């Protein structure tokens, strides 16, 4: 194997190996663990940088390993995978820093960081998967390694939440597996190819292909929290904040959405999907989820729960973009993969900060928190405004392209109302929070002040990550037209998918 074949493997290994080593470290070796974590994260960032440059210049990075006749583990870097890999890598680095601060004195840190690294390895592997078989493997691995993270606290609620999470995701995994096997029997190894590979199959297969599509989307939809398969997501909120952040922004939810994008564009092909009449169904499911999630979010007082339902809603923008035929809608959906990630991770970081610093878990406790924690609240506000779609934050860009795409595809009649309703609802559940935080008088005391205000409003490791991600969210909107911006990259993807 040459360098081009090793690079994808190295990208996965740069978090896998530190993770495995960390398991064997004693609880006390704090420095070594931190060093390993950060070294792995930074190395991965460098490797991904090379990958971005190479893929842009149409280099082929591919590793293959035969597991059984006809079943190959393939890691392959294309534009879409690079987008997701980059998102994961950047957010992993930030989240690692955050988690080091968050778990400073908590027990079982070696176990936590070990699984944390494995979780990112699985996500990156899933992003780089070159065929559906490989994707399924990493998809299931992701389930496995996130289970201990959700159950990490060991309380009965945590174990229960983790069990529900597992029941949903393993059930989904089984549907995905059956769909994949079926497809494999019909069409042979299903490599991810831009434009899809199934349109050449005889028409007699079309009914089966429709059922398979349903199985695949249902399997992926569990992780992507498509209604009514979303039930695990609010339950999994028991996880520590960095885990929730990663789960909602990158790892689990996004893996499902990414899988939907892969299946529609690179397995079935978007035109063939439309020809089979499946695109509209997907769009409707996404639209229902968007509205449902937003409505549910309105009624949550628990901050993390509100954010969780917001995730249910926001992730389906990606599925919605996928369901809109035409490059512009595609761009909207794919770019939201990144934008939602950056914004949602900011929101979870800040929610974690409120809880860790002042013991605030509920929105009703947030009165005047902006004065006590201005930087955190500013980050929260930027991300929240982005979610609503206020320019110039990143979220606006996504919604703009989705709307434009719907117009172009002639689907505006039902997509537009969904977008508008959702934005109104977004505003309805975020703006009152902002109002409370900035303009209400604080109560006599915070629920439980763990970290007193010193040089910063909270400890540095907790403060910088949300500030950085909020800045990124702002930058992604402001400099959307710059080269290598998420938007530009999404445009590149869309052009390659449509063969433009």
């Amino acid at each position, binding site marked *: 194997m040459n360098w081009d074949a090793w690079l994808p493997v190295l990208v996965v290994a740069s978090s896998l190996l530190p993770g495995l080593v960390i398991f064997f470290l004693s609880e006390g070796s704090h420095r070594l663990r931190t060093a390993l974590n950060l070294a792995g994260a930074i190395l991965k960032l460098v490797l991904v940088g090379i990958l971005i440059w190479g893929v842009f210049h149409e280099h082929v990075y591919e590793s293959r390993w035969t*597991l059984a006749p006809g079943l190959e583990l393939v890691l392959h870097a294309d534009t879409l995978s690079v987008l997701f890999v980059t998102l994961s890598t950047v957010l992993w680095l930030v989240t690692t820093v955050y988690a080091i601060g968050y778990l400073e004195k908590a027990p079982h840190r070696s176990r936590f960081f070990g699984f944390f690294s494995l979780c990112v390895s699985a996500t990156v592997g899933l992003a780089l998967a070159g065929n559906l078989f490989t994707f*399924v493997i990493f998809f*299931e*691995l992701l389930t496995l390694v996130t289970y201990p993270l959700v159950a990490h606290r*060991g309380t009965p609620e945590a174990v229960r939440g983790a069990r529900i999470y*597992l029941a949903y995701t*393993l059930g989904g995994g089984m549907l995905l597996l059956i769909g994949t096997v079926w497809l494999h029997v019909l069409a042979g190894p299903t490599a991810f190819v831009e434009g899809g590979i199934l349109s050449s199959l005889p028409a007699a297969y079309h009914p089966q292909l429709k059922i398979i599509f349903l199985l695949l989307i249902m399997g992926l939809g569990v992780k992507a929290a498509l209604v009514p398969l979303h039930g695990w997501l609010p339950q999994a909120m028991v996880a520590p904040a960095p885990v929730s952040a990663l789960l909602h922004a990158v790892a689990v939810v996004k893996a499902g959405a990414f899988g939907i994008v892969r299946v529609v564009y690179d397995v079935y092909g978007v035109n063939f999907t439309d020809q089979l009449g499946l695109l509209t169904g997907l769009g409707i499911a996404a639209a229902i989820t968007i509205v449902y999630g937003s409505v549910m979010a309105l009624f949550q007082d628990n901050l993390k729960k509100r954010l969780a339902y917001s995730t249910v809603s926001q992730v389906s923008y990606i599925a919605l973009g996928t369901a809109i035929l035409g490059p512009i809608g595609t761009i909207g959906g794919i770019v939201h993969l990144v934008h939602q990630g950056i914004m949602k991770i900011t929101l979870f970081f800040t929610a974690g900060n409120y809880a860790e610093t002042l013991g605030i878990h509920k929105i009703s406790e947030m009165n005047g928190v902006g004065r006590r924690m201005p930087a955190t609240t500013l980050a929260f506000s930027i991300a929240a405004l982005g979610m609503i779609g206020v320019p110039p934050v990143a979220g606006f860009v996504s919604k703009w392209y989705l709307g434009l795409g719907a117009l172009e595809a002639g689907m505006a009649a039902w997509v537009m109302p969904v977008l508008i309703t959702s934005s109104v609802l977004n505003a309805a559940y975020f703006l009152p929070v902002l109002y409370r935080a900035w303009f209400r008088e604080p109560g006599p005391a915070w629920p439980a002040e763990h970290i007193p205000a010193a040089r910063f409003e909270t400890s540095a490791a907790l403060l910088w990550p949300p500030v950085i991600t909020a800045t990124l969210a702002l930058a992604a909107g402001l400099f959307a037209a710059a080269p290598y911006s998420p938007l530009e990259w999404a445009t590149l993807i869309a052009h390659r998918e449509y063969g433009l």
Partner: protein
Amino acid sequence: MTDAMIGLIALPLAGALATLLLPRSATAVAIGTGLATTVAAGLLLSGVATQGALHYEIGGWSAGLGIALRADGLSALLLMMTALVALAASVYASAYFNTASERARFWPLWLLLWTALNALLLSGDLFNLYVTLELLGLSAVALASLSGRRAAVAAALRYLLVGLLGSMMFLAGVSLLYAGYGTLDLAALSHMVAPGPSAWTALALMTTGLLLKTALFPLHFWLPPAHASAPAPVSAVLSALVVKAAFYLVLRLWLDVFATVVTPAAANLLGLLGAGAVLWGSWHALQAERLKLLAAYSTVAQLGYLFLFFPLLLALPSGPARDLAAGGLVMLALTHGFAKAGLFLAIGVIQQRCGHDTIRQLDGTAQRLPATTFAIALAGVALIGLPPSGAFLGKWQLLAGAVEAGQWLWLVVTAVGSLLAAAYIFKVLGHAFGHRPYPNQPVTVAREEWPALLLAGMAALVLGLSGAPMWKLLELGI
């Protein structure tokens, strides 16, 4: 290479005699014997890989007049698994049994069991198979009752009686075949056997006898108490290897000797029983309150999966799809062997270190043994059939075969069974996440914890990720 076949039988047998005559150094002799036997298994495997199927005529008499030993890809792989599992369990046993007298009683029987397994997997003669089955059965029963506790003795007695019934049925089938064809040599029979009343009856009798021994639902009733009350290293080998030896014979008979006799309807019956085993075994594993019982019921379920392959293998025309299904079957059997042995050894560690194996009370106790908990998790991954275990590839082929043959029932059963397996495995693992102090060394008792970890790792990682050569080897087999 053919000497390796003799070695596989003579080494453990000689070891058994040596441990009996030299009880003071029995452990050293036994581990040495185990290593040598494993080397012989490795040599045989590489011999089969390079030269194809091997055979050896004992005493120099041609097969038929004398007894021939045979090894092809399938048997060589199972022999290798037997060697690795038994070696790991031997290392564990050297730490498990505390007193000299326990060890003196254990080692000779243990090596006789190993002899029986190897002899069975190598045998090419029907009556010789009967003798190996009896040697296997008696040594397994003697080992299962080793603790002398009432539950163990009662379970062992039932195990023995059921095994004897099975052997008698097998022998009745053998008599019938000898009456019809005048030979006991498997290879000769596979050319001669033709559909007809005597072949059907013989197959039915032998299969029923073997199903009793391999504990296929609803003939499984004896297995859970016997496997759950035996000493941990013995349970490991009973669940991983002994029932599989009888399964191997069913496979041999159905796909090799009686290939022209078996009918899809009969295979469907086996498949249905397998489905019953998957659902019944998994459900009871989920209800189990003790870890060992959970593991034992899981064995009932896992054997069920193996039988789901039979209707597929009969429905699929010979070709790549059928070969893949056959490979999947072997992969599943191998993975289960390693995983279940690892699981039982890990349970043994917990039972000895914590004084119990009640699932409800595992909170925190498993915490003190992180490596063992990890071994349970790895074994669990393999039992559920999640990637990257070998069982994932096996189940993939099972599902693919079901789709290919259009037999959707097996697909549903596999899916439900896997989810139930996930439920009972994670029920155990859920207890491992408690807020108890975490020791600084991940591995606390090396000689006890490593064997389980290595076996589980073999099942969950090695077989799945680097099992590709296995398929090539199997083309020489079934």
